[in-house]
């Protein structure tokens, strides 16, 4: 059984096909990441999976319910953290949670019992009476996450959960998301932070122009698409140096004023660096895969 599956999903707006034949399968308890540049169709795919918009064709099953036909039933067991916070500014922290629980038909008494646990989870213990306008960006984000958990969902959708947050706030969110997967919840998140995807996701799919162009665990994707070592070189004379490097590394490419060398063994290239050239030697990352596949690197 899958927690979420989509087959041959298509959706157009006017002449523009935003989602063109997407297949997804997310296993229960998995943290699944949907990566892609802006406009790749990530948010539209999430909305389709939630039954908020109807696909032109294709099939979706969310927690065993066919969507959009039984989207209501499915959504009762799903939580959503949207891209932009939409907490109710007229209410306090606690009222936001209580009111939201009411939309799920959860009795006031029942939610009141769980409020302190939710606030603790959000790192907002003791802030129940605070006005939304007095919260920082990170606090709002955490409250939105807590709000997505009022119905104790089996699956949580997150659309760019840490965009716009400072590193401290981001790390706290990551820690909480890991806690959720440990509790056995399924997470589906979109992001364009490769670091986030690499740390959190068991499996991910890279999406571009409405299609999924690669899928697998972060490690497998890196192994499959990129050589393990990367050397970034820039500085005066990089163009002449690049000609030399081409003979030393299996793959060399230039993006703007930086030369990227990829290879199994990068030592010979490293030794050839001289003069005023600056360099960074690092292991291959998901970002390299992403840039290679989505073709955003400007190859000369």
């Amino acid at each position, binding site marked *: 059984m899958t927690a979420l599956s989509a087959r041959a999903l298509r959706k157009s707006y006017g002449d523009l096909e935003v989602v063109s034949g997407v297949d997804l399968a997310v296993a229960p308890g998995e943290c699944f990441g949907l990566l892609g540049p802006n406009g790749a169709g990530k948010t539209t795919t999430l909305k389709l999976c939630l039954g*908020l918009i109807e696909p032109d064709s294709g099939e979706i099953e969310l927690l065993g319910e066919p969507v959009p036909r039984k989207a209501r039933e499915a959504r009762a067991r799903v939580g959503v953290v949207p891209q932009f916070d939409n907490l109710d500014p007229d209410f306090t922290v606690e009222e936001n949670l209580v009111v939201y629980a009411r939309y799920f038909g959860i009795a006031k008494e029942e939610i009141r019992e769980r409020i302190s646990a939710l606030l603790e989870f959000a790192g907002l213990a003791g802030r129940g009476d605070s006005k939304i306008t007095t919260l920082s960006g990170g606090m709002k984000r955490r409250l939105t996450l807590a709000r997505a958990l009022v119905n104790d969902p089996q699956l949580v959708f997150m659309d760019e959960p840490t965009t716009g947050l400072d590193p401290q706030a981001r790390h706290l969110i990551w820690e909480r998301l890991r806690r959720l997967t440990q509790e056995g919840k399924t997470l589906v998140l979109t992001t364009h932070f490769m670091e986030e995807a690499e740390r959190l996701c068991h499996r991910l799919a890279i999406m571009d122009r409405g299609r999924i162009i690669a899928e697998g665990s972060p490690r497998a994707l890196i192994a499959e698409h990129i050589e393990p070592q990367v050397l970034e070189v820039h500085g005066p004379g990089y163009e002449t140096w690049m000609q030399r490097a081409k003979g030393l590394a299996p793959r060399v490419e230039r993006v703007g004023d930086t030369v990227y060398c990829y290879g199994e063994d990068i030592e010979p290239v490293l030794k050839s660096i001289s003069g005023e050239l600056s360099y960074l030697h690092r292991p291959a990352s998901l970002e390299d895969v992403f840039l290679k596949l989505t073709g955003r690197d400007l190859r000369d």
Partner: protein
Amino acid sequence: MLVWRKLFAAAVLSNLADPLIMLFGLGYGLGALLPSVEGMSYLAFFAAGQLCTATMFTASFESMFSGFSRMHGQKTWDAILYAPLTIDDIVAGEIVWAASKAWLTGSTILGVVVVFGLASSPWVLLALPAAFLVGLAFSAVGLIMCVLARGWDFFSYYMTLMMTPMMMISGVFFPAEQLPAPLLAVAKALPLYHGVQIVRPLVAGGPPPDLWLHAAVLLAYAAAGYTLAIYFARRRFSS
């Protein structure tokens, strides 16, 4: 959904001050100059019209401005849609809420009418459901405007081109029958006239003639508004 809406009840106060000042300002001032109108004091005559107008304004403001703020500004509708609710539920909730708030305005004015001895027959109690009906009709139409709006300016067209002229020709300030026939026909096609036609005889102390016809027009506006608002809301939220 309604549970949350009820918390806003305090805001109703501001909706009451205006119509009451209008009522007593105009009512007493003009009332002193005018003889009785249609067998009632001008104050009572105008109070019946003002009850409907104030209800109309509250319903329209709530469904347009507050609704648009929740839909567009605060994105509250988006948040609600993640729950097992649909856009249809939200539209219905907004309309019923705005109508309830409008009803509160109408019934408070009614209270003032009774306290000041402008109406003494028990018939006047029927103005309570009538006010809700007026609220429902204008909330539903207001919500169409809300889900069609691209910005706040949009509402001023509706207010200036529809509501203000409607208030002038619907028999609020003077009997609509004094109007030239074409204008009267326009008034009869609009909801406010029918609200006034129900409420005024009730204030005077008797059953309104053609009660069911007037009620049917108001209901038709509510039903059509509800249907169209849902249609446009679905369209807005599916793209």
